[in-house]
């Protein structure tokens, strides 16, 4: 364990990854202090004005908004839109800060559940083999043959709008990779003699999978999972951008980007006029994905026993 930490800290790229990740974790935890909510539902993005057009960074809260919040009994401490406002006067800064929580939630929940489904089906397929393997892997193939984004979109459209629906869709079409990976590594680990030794001791199948196979095969899956957290967030953002994600006004990075959709090209003669509407949400997403990828890379270097030369 100490060795893992030492390794993480000794490498520049992994250090950058870890610091970035830490940065996001801090934002998520301290969101109520960084950007105090003004609605009862903290995920409802604070609006600085009723204007449709985005406003540049530093834009102060419009008086009519202040009146609204004060009538709700809220104290307005933060009255400047630090990163400007998005379409509809939504405060970009607020949306990004609270969106960090959403990003973690979407990323971790989808990855954990799809990993569970993948690992269970993959390890059962690999361990028992025969027709069970055949059946499970054909199902996997069918799921894999459907384009991910399209499938997720169709499913979300059927289920209805909402972040939880997006997560269901992402899980339903995101587990196959894990099943493949774990199946492959269990198939090779199954040949190891300690598996035969465990059987010779009279160990039950379930215990063999849980105690002997998974601890020796789970690491490539964990590495893949940590990298996937980033890409899941991107996909969720893409779904939001396409209009099937979070409900209007919900703090979600995808939503922030989708707010910018109509303003990306700027105004005639001033292409960069609304740069902040795209730039800030974009940079958050990029850095978030990057941090998970760097961490995943490091995990792979550390956990791969072949690279370590220990086994």
């Amino acid at each position, binding site marked *: 364990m100490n060795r893992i930490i030492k390794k993480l800290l000794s490498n520049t790229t992994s250090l950058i990854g870890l610091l970035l990740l830490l940065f996001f974790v801090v934002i998520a935890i301290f969101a109520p202090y960084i950007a105090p909510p003004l609605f009862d539902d903290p995920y409802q993005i604070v609006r600085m004005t009723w204007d449709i057009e985005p406003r540049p960074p530093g834009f102060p809260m419009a008086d009519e908004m202040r009146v609204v919040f004060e009538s709700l009994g809220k104290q307005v401490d933060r009255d400047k839109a630090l990163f400007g406002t998005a379409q509809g006067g939504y405060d970009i800064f607020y949306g990004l800060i609270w969106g960090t929580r959403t990003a973690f939630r979407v990323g971790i929940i989808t990855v954990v559940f799809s990993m569970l489904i993948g690992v269970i089906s993959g390890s059962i397929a690999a361990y028992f083999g025969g027709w069970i393997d055949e059946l499970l892997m054909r199902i996997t193939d069918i799921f894999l043959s459907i384009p991910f984004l399209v499938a997720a979109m169709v499913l979300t459209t059927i289920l209805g709008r909402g972040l939880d629906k997006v997560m269901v869709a992402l899980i339903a079409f995101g587990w196959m990779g894990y099943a493949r990976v774990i199946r492959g590594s269990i198939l090779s680990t199954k040949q190891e003699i*300690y598996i035969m*030794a*465990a059987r010779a001791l009279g160990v*039950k199948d379930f*215990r063999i999978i849980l105690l002997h196979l998974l*601890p020796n095969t789970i690491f490539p899956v964990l590495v893949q999972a940590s990298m996937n957290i980033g890409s899941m967030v991107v996909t969720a953002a893409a779904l939001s951008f396409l209009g099937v994600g979070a409900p209007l006004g919900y703090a979600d990075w995808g939503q922030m980007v989708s707010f910018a959709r109509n303003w990306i090209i700027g105004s005639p003669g001033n292409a960069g006029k609304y740069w902040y509407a795209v730039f800030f949400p974009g940079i958050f997403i990029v850095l978030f994905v990057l941090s998970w990828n760097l961490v995943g890379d490091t995990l792979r270097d550390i956990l791969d026993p072949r690279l370590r030369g*220990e*086994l």
Partner: protein
Amino acid sequence: MNNRLISVKNLVKYFPIRKGVFRTIAGWVKAVDDISFDIYEGETLGLVGESGCGKSTAALTMFRLEEPTSGEIIYQGENIARISKKKMRDYRKDLQMIFQDPYSSLNPRMKIKNIIAEGLVVHNLLDNKKRMKKVGEVLERVGISANSMDRFPHEFSGGQRQRIGIARALALDPKIIICDEAVSALDVSIRSQIINLFKELQKEFNLTYLFIAHDLSVIKFVSDRVAVMYLGKMVEIAPTKKFFQKTMHPYAQALVSAVPVPNPDYKRHRILLPGDVPSPVDPPKGCHFHPRCPKVMEICSKAEPEFIEIEEGHFVACHLY
């Protein structure tokens, strides 16, 4: 002689070869092809043969780690070839195995104490405290300090890992242990330590061994009786002394003559066999050894020789006798 501990009768193990889209069975690998032998209590039966002769498969099948295609395995009056998997699990603590590769036979992510206690846990023997005491005892017995039970396999050398593998088998107080090439992968100076350990443990715990090896010098040293397999068949079984004084089967003779002896002055007639071992998918008709046999006769390609007792305890499958 002592009591029969385990009897193998007409044991057969074929592996299917599947081909094509529909995975239809295109043929069979006849790994073990109708072999019979007994193992007596307290003895060491040495099983030799070259790679692919089916000796390891025979052992795995005998313990139901591979399902036998047909045949009987009589242990404690019961045919364990035909009992349910669940019932077989109860017998497993009597029947233990030690494997060749000390590097892949221990789970790299488990501590030594958990590796050794595993059998006790799954058979629900002893409470946790007594288990750890037992683990300590068997570790000390095989020559590893009980203090190192919290360490992981990679912290040990090959010889030490093999000792740990022995301790794992020993923890269950087994009746019979199959040593599948258990000393083959070890260095010369370590090998003799482990061989001596096997012998000591046998005396101390009245163990019975099925000792599988390809090295006849080791077999000669450890075994009370020697069994030779060729291409899925048993070709000769005899008490060790008799076997080396009067080797009968032409294959066994060639095998004995091919063993390198660490003595530059050791002169003998070396029988060089032509060609390679044929594939067990399509073994030669009649006696499996006839295409390579220096004493081949006409009958050999037609009829399969029976495995008969020539002298007391000396069985051979050859038309010469």
